[in-house]
Every structure is written in C-alpha cells, then in structure tokens.
C-alpha cells in the first residue's frame, strides 16, 4: 500500500510539475455537478468562485458530465484523481454508485465532500444539506404567517399522499405551529404534482374555505398551479400563495401578486459554502466528523450530525425585490 501510494504520489508530483506551476500553490477544488448546463449549478459555480476570490489561493474547477448519470460522474471523478486535485465537492447523481470512485479519491489524499445531493457516508468526509427538514417546515409556515399579522386561515397543498419530503416538512411545520398564534391550518389537500389536479384542489380549497388567507404549497408544481388558480378565481391580494418553488417558475406568480414570497435554497450560497468547507478541510486540516464545527465564511458555521451531515441555512426567501435577479438563474 505505501509503495503504491509513493508511486502514485510521485506520479502525481510529476503530473503537477508538467502542469501549470500555479497549481502547485493554489488549492484546487473541483466542483462536480449533476450535469453541465443547468442554471442551478451554474449559479452554485458562481458562488464557489465568490468563495475562491475571498480566499485568494483557490482555483475552482467547475465540471460534471453532460447528462445526469452516475457513469458520467465516475469518469469525471477518475479524471480529477488523475489531475490530483486537492478537493472534490460533488452533487451526486447516485448515492451508492459513486462510492468506490470517491473512496479511491480519498485514498489518494483528496478531500471529498458532497453537497445538495448526497453520497453514502462511506464515500465522503461530510455532506452539506442546503437546509434541514425542521428549517423548511418552519419556513413554509413563517412565509404565510409573515403576511398575516392578525392571524388567519391557511391550507396546505402538498404533492402526493406518499411523498416523503412533503410529509416530513408538513410534520415539522405542525410541530412549530405553537410559535404562530392565530394561524389556523384548515386542511391539507394533495395535488399529486400534476398541474391540473393541483389547480382543481386549490380551487376547491378556496370554495370550501371562503375566508382562506393563504395556500402553502411545499412543491414546485403545486405552488405554480395554486398561483394560477388564485389568479383565475380573482382572489389575488385575498389569498397569498407561498411555499417552495423555483424563481424561474414563480416569476409570473410574483408579478401577478398571487404570491407575495416563497422560498428555496440559494444555489449561490450553496456553492459558496461547499467551496469554503472543502477549503477548510483540505488546506486548514479541519477534521470532518460527527459533531465537528466547520466555518464557512459569510454563511457562519456548519455543525455536523452523527452522519457527518450539516444543514447550511434557512431556505432563502424570494419576493418582488430579488425575483428578477434569480429568475434567469434557475
């Protein structure tokens, strides 16, 4: 093993000597995404570059396959191992398939972290979640409550009855209802992530609850359909549609006033944090393990749980003031 390592190290050394001289000093962090050409990841790369500019001695290699396959990412990882980068921060297309390739990278002394979409614990040193279920559950009810200072009736439009994510978020939301006195959840309906069914369910909610003040849709299809239903029912200003959605999809709803605000992670912050974390572990030798606290620049400190996972921050709130900036990004 040690002989093998030495051989590899000298091979890598030779490679770096032939490569650009600057590479020997800079910490080279590879930001591996699910596929190139996706606005969300382009924005994350922008955030990583921001972190690089702040840190000074970092070179960001933004890369990924052309389609969202695990095979494509394995090829990319192997190429990065050959280039002997200092750190790999990956948003994985498959939880398990990438583990052998990433383990190989770790054996070569490369720092491996996953972000956004995780890898199984044995294939990375830590994982950065954009947010946590508890933070999301709190955020969706907070978004509705913020515009209802005197309290009011809200209803939830979810995806399917069996959607794991949505069910957990709604459960977390119910846990913190005590913090929002005066806010009544009058019902939960399921739009099955179909535009037409969600639209119909939202219309039904407004009919059976004439005093409804807000519809919370923690699903991107549902929130768009509910906003359209509110516009068509002529209830803009009366019923506020909020929840989780993408800025590009929700720009119309913000413009029409059907939605005052909604939330989703901020990809720029996510890329920034991933780069910061990779730098801290790779350059400053911070140990990533359960209970570790790792600084990530302007985003504060990340605390890892027993699976070496951490949640970056509250979902980022989008409204009329910043929608134009983000709608072209993702």
């Amino acid at each position, binding site marked *: 093993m040690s002989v093998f390592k030495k051989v590899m190290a000298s091979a890598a050394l030779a490679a770096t000597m032939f490569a650009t001289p600057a590479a020997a000093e800079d910490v080279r962090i590879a930001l591996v995404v699910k596929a190139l050409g996706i606005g969300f990841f382009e924005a994350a790369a922008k955030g990583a570059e921001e972190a690089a500019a702040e840190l000074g001695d970092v070179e960001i290699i933004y890369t990924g396959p052309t389609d969202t396959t695990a095979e494509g990412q394995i090829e990319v990882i192997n190429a990065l191992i050959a280039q002997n980068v200092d750190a790999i921060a990956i948003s994985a297309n498959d939880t398990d398939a990438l583990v052998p390739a990433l383990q190989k990278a770790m054996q070569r002394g490369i720092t491996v972290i996953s972000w956004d979409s995780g890898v199984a614990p044995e294939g990375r040193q830590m994982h950065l979640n954009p947010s946590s279920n508890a933070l999301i559950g709190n955020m969706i009810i907070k978004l509705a409550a913020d515009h209802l200072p005197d309290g009011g009736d809200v209803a939830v439009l979810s995806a399917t*009855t069996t959607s794991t994510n949505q069910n957990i978020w709604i459960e977390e939301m119910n846990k913190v209802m005590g913090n929002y006195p005066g806010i009544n959840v009058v019902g939960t*309906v399921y739009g099955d992530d179909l535009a037409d*069914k969600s639209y*119909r369910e939202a219309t*039904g909610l407004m009919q*059976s609850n004439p005093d409804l003040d807000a519809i919370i849709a923690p699903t991107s299809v549902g929130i*768009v359909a509910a906003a359209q239903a509110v516009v068509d029912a002529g209830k803009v200003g009366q019923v506020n549609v909020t929840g989780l959605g993408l800025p590009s*999809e929700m*720009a119309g709803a913000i413009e029409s006033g059907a939605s005052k605000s909604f939330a989703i992670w901020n990809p720029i912050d996510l890329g920034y944090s991933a780069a910061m974390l990779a730098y801290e572990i790779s350059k400053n030798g911070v140990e990533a393990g359960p209970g570790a606290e790792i600084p990530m620049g302007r985003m504060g400190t990340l605390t890892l749980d027993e699976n070496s996972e951490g949640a970056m921050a509250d979902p980022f709130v989008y409204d009329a003031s910043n929608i134009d900036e983000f709608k072209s990004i993702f």
Partner: protein
Amino acid sequence: MMRMIPVRETILSAAILLLLALIATRFSGFVAPSNLANVFNDTAPLIILALGQMVVILTRCIDLSVAANLALTGMAVAMLNVAVPGLPIPIIIAIAITLGAIMGAINGILVWKLEIPPIVVTLGTMTIFRGIIFLISDGKWVNAHEMSEAFTGFPRAAVLGLPVLSWVAVLCVIVFGIMMARTPLGRSIFAVGGNPHAAVYTGINVGKTQFLAFVISGALAGLTGYLWVARYAVAYVDIAGGFELEVVAACVIGGISIAGGIGTVGGAVLGALFLGVVKNALPVVNISPFWQLAITGSAILIAVAFNARSGNAKGRIILKSAQSSS
C-alpha cells in the same frame, strides 16, 4: 337498437344529477350555476379528448398516446410562443392542430400499413412523444411569465358568459354530432367497428378509416395541448401525465364499447362530465384523498359493469323486418 342508446344516456344523465344532488347536500355552493360553469370549463379538455378517443375506439382501436401528444404539442407551441411572442393565436392554434394531426397520422400509418396492434403502437408513441418533449425542452419548464398575454388569455376570455375553452368543447361536440350522424366518414367509422368484414364488402377501406380516426384523435389532442398549456400557464415534460387513462375511462363510462362499433357522441360527453363532476366535487366535499382514488375507481367499475350487462344484447335479428314485410 335505436331505443337502447337513449336509455343508456338517460341513466347516465340521471346518475350525474343524483351525484350533483348528493354533493349539494354536503356543499350547496357546488350546484350554483357559476360553479357548474366552472366545472364544465374544467372538464372541457376531457370532453374534447373523449370525442377523439371515441372515434378511435369505435373503429376497434385505442389511442393511448393522446396525453403525450397533448403534452408535446403544448410544449412545442409554448416554446414557439416564447421564441416568437407576436405570433397571432389563430396561427398557433392551426399549428397545434396540425402538429397533433401529424402525430395521430404516425399512429394511424403504423396501424394501417404495418398492421401493428393499436395498443402497442400508441404505447410506443406515447413514450416516444414524452421523450421528444424532454429533448426539445431539455427538461426545462416554460413558465407563465415567458408566455405572452394573448397566449394565456385566449382560453379564459369570456364570450357570452362562458370562457372560450368551454365554447371550443361545445363546438367540438356539435361538429362531432353532425359528423358521426350525417357524413359518410361517421357511418364508415361505425361500420368498421361494428363488422370490419361487412365493411370491406360495402367498399369501406378499414385501415384507412382507422387511420383517419387516429388523425382526428391526434388533431384534437393537439388543439387541447395548446388550450391546456395556456390554461395552466405552464409547460413541462409531465403535463397531463396519465390523462390518457382518464380519457379512455370517460369513453367507457359513456357506454362506448371497447370492442368497437357501439357508442354515441352524447355518451362520450356525459362520461366525461361524470368524471369531471366527480373530480371537481371530491376536493370540496372534504373526503380524505385516499378515498378520492377509491371513489373514482369504483365509479368506473360500476359504469363498466353496467355497460357490460346492457351491452350483452340478445342476438340481433336482422331479417325480422324483411320477414314481416314479405
């Protein structure tokens, strides 16, 4: 024979009225005229597609690609609208119908010329069409703010109190009513489904009739594609996912025999309306979503069981009149 069909439609109408009465006891606002107009408007796409599907089923075929055709046409016209925002709506509609008809023609050609079973052909094209949407859109959505005002406004513009979307459905019903009863094409569709061998002897080209049925179904799916995307103001790969089954269900509930040859325009419309009422009523009567699925499913089964029994007609005595007159 002629008497049996109105009976079936009367029963279905009665079932819808009974359903409405039941809903009214739990939520009286549902039967307000304005809400019933909304329900009709919401059901309009289903009615249009059910008419197309009816024609196909009558010829002993089935078109499972209607929803995928709808989604692909919808995506195509939505992207066209983004690229050329000034394009007038009549031209967009013409393009939608043409695109849909071309996709229907592909189904039709495969069934006619290669004699592949229709269920296989349309199952294949269904997947292909969805795949093409992914290819042309790159998996991205076309969103409300990217579509032009006129594009999304057309189906909801009110004419004589009803949105254009509803009027399109009414127009389709009238055209189909005339086509099925008064034109050679309508009669040959019944003939092909009722008895293909006899149809051949009367000089009807069975394959060609089936081809035309697929073209008609495709054209209607194309038209609905535009209306759907404009109404929900969003286009993405999965729109109307699984809707083809609802369309077939509407036909079956409406008494259109899967074996072909039996069915009426009125039946298809009533079948679609029945499903439309159920779908719109369930959210407001506050029934658990788990029951919603079960109720819709049971309604279909009951209707089919009923149709199967009444469809079990005694052998038709075709020479009786000849006998008595001689």
